[in-house]
């Protein structure tokens, strides 16, 4: 007999095999998931979930697809949370401190409670990346928030109503576009191609018979 545990989906009890994730346990229980399920492998943030173990006080947040069930788990999924995205024309922005002040001024209402960090399903230092954003240290904010998958668990818990993942996206886009140094070899190659430097060579290789291509391929030199 499989090892079974009792879990409570939205308050209703189900017995499920102990080695399942919350997501597969819901399916085992008979749910056909539409919301709250995207990549199933920890990358998309669709499956934000909040739970409490029976008899314990602490509320925990997690990803349903990456978290194993436990005995006495009371589970509620958070398939949508009204985070508040501001729209902008990225080409008109400047990577300076004012940009956060203008687009996400609520970050300055952070009370430093650290609930966001505690809630983060990726174990990021969320309060810290918000602090970087406040100070206009966009690159640091971008680095610190890089592994954010946008599940929104932090925002659910924030008393200041901050939409953390969206602050991170803005910081990363500004960093990638304006702060990171330009890749000259890339710019050069795009220019060469636009000037037609490879047109003839590519035509030639496209015309070669398969046997010759096989020769070329099997004997090509491979960079160490």
């Amino acid at each position, binding site marked *: 007999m499989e090892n079974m545990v009792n879990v409570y989906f939205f308050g209703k009890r189900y017995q499920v095999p102990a080695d399942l994730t919350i997501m597969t346990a819901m399916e085992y229980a008979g749910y056909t998931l*539409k919301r709250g399920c*995207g990549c199933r492998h920890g990358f998309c943030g669709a499956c934000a979930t909040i739970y409490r173990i029976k008899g314990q006080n602490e509320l925990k947040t997690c990803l349903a697809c*990456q978290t194993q069930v436990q005995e006495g788990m009371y589970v509620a999924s958070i398939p949508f949370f009204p985070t508040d995205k501001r729209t902008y024309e990225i080409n008109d922005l400047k990577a300076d401190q004012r940009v956060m002040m203008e687009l996400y001024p609520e970050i300055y209402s952070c009370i430093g409670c650290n609930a966001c960090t505690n809630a983060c399903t990726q174990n990021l230092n969320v309060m810290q990346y918000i602090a970087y954003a406040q100070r206009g240290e966009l690159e640091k904010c971008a680095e610190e928030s890089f592994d954010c998958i946008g599940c929104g668990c932090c925002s659910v818990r924030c008393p200041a109503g901050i939409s953390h993942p969206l602050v991170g996206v803005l910081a990363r886009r*500004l960093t990638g576009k304006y702060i990171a*140094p330009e890749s000259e*070899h*890339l710019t050069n190659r795009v220019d060469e191609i636009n000037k037609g430097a490879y047109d003839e060579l*590519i035509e030639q290789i496209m015309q070669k018979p398969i046997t010759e291509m096989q020769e070329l391929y099997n004997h090509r030199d491979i*960079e160490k």
Partner: protein
Amino acid sequence: MFTPDMLESIKKVEATRAERMGVEPRRMTAEEKDSLLKAFHPDYRADGFAEIQIGPNKGQKAPKELTGLLHSNSRLLQDKVDLSKVDYDVDVLVIGGGGAGSSAAIEAHEAGANVMMVTKLRIGDANTMMAEGGIQAADKENDSPVQHYLDAFGGGHFAARPELLRRLVMEAPDAIRWLNELGVMFDKDEDGRMVTTHGGGTSRKRMHACKDYSGAEIMRTLRDEVLNRKIPVVEFTSAVELIKDEKGQVAGAVLLNMETDDYLVARAKTVIIATGGAGRLHYQNFPTSNHYGATADGLVLGYRAGAPLLYQDTIQYHPTGVAYPSQIFGALVTEKVRSLGAMLINKDGEAFMHPLETRDVSAASIIRECSERGKGVDTPLGSGVWLDTPMIEMIGGEGTIEKRIPAMLRMYLNYGIDMRKQPILIYPTLHYQNGGLEIGGEGFTKTIPNLLVAGEAVGGIHGRNRLMGNSLLDIIVFGRNAGKAAAAKAKDVELGTMNLDHIYSYAEELKAAGIETEEVSPLLLPKYARHER
């Protein structure tokens, strides 16, 4: 949290590690690869395939599950939809909210078209979001688009369509530039040089990455841009059938609200199918690395409307899917783990192959190790071989894993496995659909003049196997192209009267072929609830 037997085997892996360091295992010869593939690659297992009985690819084979869907009925034979009640009326309809669809939507919008996107789950709940390893482009001095062409053509078994592959490699550097300008944070050194590595089958280091969140970083940037542009995105809404007109053009699509089961009608002058892959069809019972919505819908609705498929019989099994623990069975272990130096090792501690052979060869080799040779490690759900991850830290220095593949580290730590200290168990997972709907060099299907396809739903760009990093590339290159081409085309299209005649004639053909079924397609979502399985 390995079992005692696994721990015993780990000891053997550790025992040979020092002598394996710095010794590159031999690469297989072309003949060895050929015979290995024929004997062990799932594409060669006859019982995994069935013949398509009707339509443009009649007489050809496809994976059984896909053939089954092509032989199923349209929902709209039962559920009648009033096409005169148009809910959306646009120039360009993009079906699918992954990387290809988002790139297309952005470029169509940039070109001034009235564009909308419909997507089954949320925008970004897509295979694109999950790509870890990276994206290829020949932008370094020792590399060239021609070299890239050669690698991709050979890696795809010389079957790629030259006009498609040409576009892929020639527009690759510009795709990277475009993403960079949108704000994608590529890995660069202090001077701005892209950090590039090898991937299986590359002859130059041209894999660009954003840590091991390459796809996520690209996808969330594209999503942010789509939203900034206020392009309408209708989520939890699937296209279930294309609509045509009496001129043989496509005229839009019938949509299904996944939550309310209401049908909606979208009229469009051009339609872009960007619905991605098919991993959730679980061909030959393989687990999959794909997202929940990867059910080949675009192939089914395109085929029913008369667009042919190409290379629908070739599937990519990624050599390194998680074999253990069971909770993450089938999840991807990025190829970058091998690019960074981890070797493939059998249960006796032997490096049985070069870690960077192409994917099909690697997958077949692992399957051989676990079957014929009996050198796999038993797991609760099957078996697997070791990927010797501690080597990465020995080669690249302590901290390399955390810095370069944090997503992998995190995924395993969740289950008490520290890949910096212990190797991990892997087995091939169903990863990518090499084939799909056939398009010409401009991105249009060959039979329907205003229907485009982009991304994983296309067949022919890569041939019969795809190299790592060329798919993220193709969704950007062909996504952008499709957006521009669709916006331009929309200016000339005069739509006739919308109809669904093609679904009725398809049903007739099915009947004539003696196929009677209760099943409906496209599938939309896999049946995972216990009572549906």
